[in-house]
């Protein structure tokens, strides 16, 4: 078991993959370190939302993912 990180939309290009498995547990600082510099920079902006186990986090810095959880990184949605 591990924590799955999903990179949605344009974040998958920055991450170089749609998802990545990392060892749990994982907090906000652990997430920043795990995603690489490019995604980390985006993640630290207000516009990227974080969901854990299918729930949007009102404050993403409170992240506390356990093994088996799925973390989704959600950039601003497309207009168009």
């Amino acid at each position: 078991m591990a924590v799955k990180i999903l990179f949605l939309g344009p974040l998958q290009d920055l991450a170089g993959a749609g998802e990545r498995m990392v060892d749990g547990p994982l907090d906000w600082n652990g997430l920043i370190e795990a995603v690489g510099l490019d995604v980390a920079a985006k993640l630290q902006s207000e516009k990227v939302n974080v969901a854990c186990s299918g729930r949007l986090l009102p404050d993403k810095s409170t992240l506390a993912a356990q093994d088996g959880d799925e973390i989704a990184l959600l950039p601003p949605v497309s207009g168009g």
Partner: protein
Amino acid sequence: MIDVRLLEKGFSAGQALARFAKANPGSGGIASFVGKVRPDNDVKALHLTHYEPLTLPGMEELAQAAMSRFALEGVLAWHRVGYLQPAAPIVLVAAAARHRRDSLAAVDYTMDHLKSAAWFWKREKRSDGWHWIEPRGQDHDDLARWN
């Protein structure tokens, strides 16, 4: 009656509307909007991605919000995901109401929220490759009308 769907395959807006009308026989009017992949700007294909645990529940909440905000008898919100060809329908929204203005306003409201507050990411394939579609300021202005 709420009919919210995420669709992996193409659909016929005309048939969907005919069924929606039958499902809401008591309504005086039905307003609708269908949005298609624009067959211009050198676009070869559109790719729509979503995040399943949030996208469909979010659309269902939006449909409920439209039902609460306007005097509706039914609302329909269908959205495509996956790969789409130019001119294919992406989204269909319909609202059945006793009064015309409620049905039109509900479609306007639901479309504005689907455009800028629903969990979809789009990229389009042009002759030089795939490009993500950025959020548009106009869409956020449209959304702010409802606050």
